[in-house]
């Protein structure tokens, strides 16, 4: 079996949300040994839907199941002195902590980065929070929509005259997880080379903001402020309806305007009023009419390969069900199957990218609550099975 690139790295994952869980999962996917530490009642992510077969059971949260693959799991009550003492023992045996508590929460338990660093000088602690560890809003409550709002992206999403629009789902959280994982591997490379540990302070709002290249720079370059698109006019670059769904087409790439006119089988597109970018912008509504009329009886699945043949930048709006059957994802071996002790066999979205020598490996399903308690506390830290029972009764684990 090939090794993982992060082979030999041990991680404690304290996070209860999507961002921290995703970050720690990516480390696990590429070889780190990750232990998820949950409060005795379970991480809050276990209460987030959708659920397997719509059964709101602690072991059936789909976000939890998919974001904690490849991790072991134990419980620990950090609000107790005993739990804190165990945690300090564990910290000395790992390279990384991933956490997403409100800044100051761990410090209030005597578990701040500077305290933990005394126990383990080369410790990397990745903290992923809505606003970061410092600054006037660091104690403010974050929420997905707030990160999009304060990360600028809503100011250009949606249409003029209507309210700004958030991204679907919890993609800002995923950004925090992925970007945080990137910063963490860099800190780990340095840790390995120099023994230097550090706290990696990730702000989810800044993750969203850092994607806004044209939006941020416009003001200090020429005083302008970007805005949402106009509600009508050319929908090139935006979804347009066809017979069985929606397509999107863009100029540029390797295709000429004649190629696009050919794809849509519309001679009118070759008229002077659509001849160049300026003309097309001016006659945007007419342009959309021609295109939408030409594709109203055509299937997105016929148009997609045809457009590709003509080197046209083209996409089809895919639904989640379509994505679960996508032949391209199959060819990349993106989905993997796992046998989970409670929900049984499920196919999971798995592979972020291919590393030729140290490939992605699916080794374990997400842990059930406290699944590895005995392994961690008895075999690992040397407590007895009787101690384990006492700790359970004391609500420490």
């Amino acid at each position, binding site marked *: 079996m090939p090794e993982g690139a992060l082979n030999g790295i041990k991680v404690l994952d304290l996070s209860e949300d999507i961002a921290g869980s995703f970050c720690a999962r990516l480390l696990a996917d590429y070889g780190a040994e990750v232990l998820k530490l949950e409060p005795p009642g379970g991480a809050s992510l276990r209460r987030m839907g959708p659920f397997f077969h719509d059964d709101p059971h602690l072991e059936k949260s789909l*976000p939890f199941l998919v974001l904690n693959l490849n991790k072991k799991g134990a419980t620990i009550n950090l609000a107790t002195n005993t739990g804190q003492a165990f945690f300090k023992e564990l910290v000395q045996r790992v390279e990384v902590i991933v956490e997403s508590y409100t800044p100051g929460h761990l410090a209030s338990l005597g578990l701040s980065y500077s305290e933990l660093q005394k126990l383990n000088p080369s410790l990397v602690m990745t903290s992923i929070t809505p606003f970061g560890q410092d*600054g006037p809003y660091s104690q403010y409550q974050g929420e997905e929509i707030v990160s999009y709002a304060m990360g600028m*992206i809503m100011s250009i999403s949606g249409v003029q005259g209507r309210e700004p629009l958030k991204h679907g*789902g919890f993609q800002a959280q995923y950004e925090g997880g992925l970007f945080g994982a990137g910063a963490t*591997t860099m800190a*780990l490379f340095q840790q390995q080379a120099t023994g230097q540990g550090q706290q990696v302070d990730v702000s989810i709002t800044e993750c969203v903001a850092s994607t806004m290249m044209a939006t941020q720079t416009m003001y200090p370059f020429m005083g302008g402020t970007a*805005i949402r698109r106009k509600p009508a006019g050319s929908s090139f670059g935006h979804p347009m309806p066809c017979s069985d769904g929606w397509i999107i087409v863009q100029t540029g790439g390797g295709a000429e305007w004649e190629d696009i006119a050919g794809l849509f089988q519309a001679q009118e597109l070759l008229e002077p009023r659509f001849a160049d970018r300026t003309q097309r912008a001016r006659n945007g509504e007419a342009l959309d009419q021609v295109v939408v009329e030409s594709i109203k009886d055509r299937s997105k699945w016929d148009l997609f390969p045809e457009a590709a043949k003509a080197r046209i930048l083209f996409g089809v709006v895919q639904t*989640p069900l379509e994505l679960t059957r996508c032949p391209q994802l199959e060819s990349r071996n993106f989905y993997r199957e796992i046998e989970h002790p409670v929900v049984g066999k499920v196919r999971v979205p798995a592979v972020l990218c291919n590393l030729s020598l*140290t490939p992605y490996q699916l080794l374990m399903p997400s842990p059930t609550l406290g699944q590895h308690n005995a392994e961690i506390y008895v075999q690992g830290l040397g407590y007895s099975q009787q101690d384990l029972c006492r700790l359970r009764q004391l609500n420490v684990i």
Partner: protein
Amino acid sequence: MSQLPLEGIRVLDSTYVFALPYAGGQLADLGAEVIKIEGPGRPDVTRTGGYAGTFPENEWGEDWWNRPSTFSLINRGKRSLTLDMTNPKGRDFFRQLVAVSDVVMENFTPRVMRGWELDYPNLRKIRPDIILVSNTGYGHGNGPYSSYPAQATTQEATHGHCWVTGYPGDAPSKAGASFVDFLSTWTAVFAIGAALRYRHQTGQGQWVDIGMYQTGVMFLSEYLMDAAVNGREGGRIGNQHPYRAPQGCYPAQGHDQWITLSVWDDAQWQALCRLMGRDDLAQDPRFATALARRRRHNELDELLRAWTAGFDKYDLMHRLQGAGIPAGPVLTGRDVHFDPHYQARGFLERVSYPPERQMGTRIFMGRPYKLSETPLQIRSPAPAFGQDNGPLLQDLLGMDQASYQQLVQDGIIATTPTSGEPGPITPPQRAVETGAIGEWDPHYREKLDL
């Protein structure tokens, strides 16, 4: 100060547009020596045409290809080498550079690097422990879409983002700009960190193959699971939360000003009613439970809109947060430059150009994380086209002056691109009138002290 994480690491960045070029910029911030390679006749599209962004004071200037905002943000901290890769001589210098580099990044369509014999098996022959990072639209391999042309805009549809984004009951929608590019950016940073660490441990390099499409799909994992096990199609719920209510984006005082808020539980609902001075609502059985609020979301939106419209967006954020309710204003590209939190975090950095560049000082986003022991910053402005040709070819590769001059004459290297047009410039007032931009502030330089 401690050594930066990537000090001593050399990266050949033969990439275009946003995704990997931005990863190169991030690596430069981390201390790597990043060499951006462009063809004399193939300048990066962020120097030319529609992807360039804006220009200082909205003027092209003489060397317009060195001045666009988007190019400048993405390529900060890099050195610049122009090299005609379509010429065998150019590729020969590329091979020589590979021999003295740690990481190579490229985003050609899959067949190009193979055709040039610069794919991973060939690069390995030059430098056995090289780390090659390839980014393509759909990933390498034999999949049906692997050779399809792709850019973020069209991929937003394909990777499922548009299906779940949009106003309720309305068409699927794109959101933001080039979203999936940045997922590839950070996938690359993540993979390079892991691969460098593995190389340090074992002496072995490897090939990182990123498909943007796949990174985008990954971000919808819970939708995919819901589809796979429950047969559910997801869909568009606008700004609402799947189970908490109310949540939305509501108007604030002023033109196109907005506040977002999200109520998680009964306590926050009660707090919101107190803040609104609406004890009647707090008592109203129609909104008493979380489930009832979710069902009557549209009615709540009406009530909230009427209330929020009377407040300044910042003032309302502080009031709501003070009552324990998650809330935040929609910040524009202008707002962030004056926001006290952004200022305190140091997210926006001032970068001063050498006088001959005539770019003055500009402000750019740094990075969304901070390292406690090795603070990072943008280390230098984005390079002028080919500005490091001399040092890289003569000092690093040991080329003599005569051969260097020959390359210049043959057009294999250059400091002026031989193709490409400057991005369009619209007078700002006209751009406001046509709705291309939201507003224009002629006093931005004084306000930012530029």
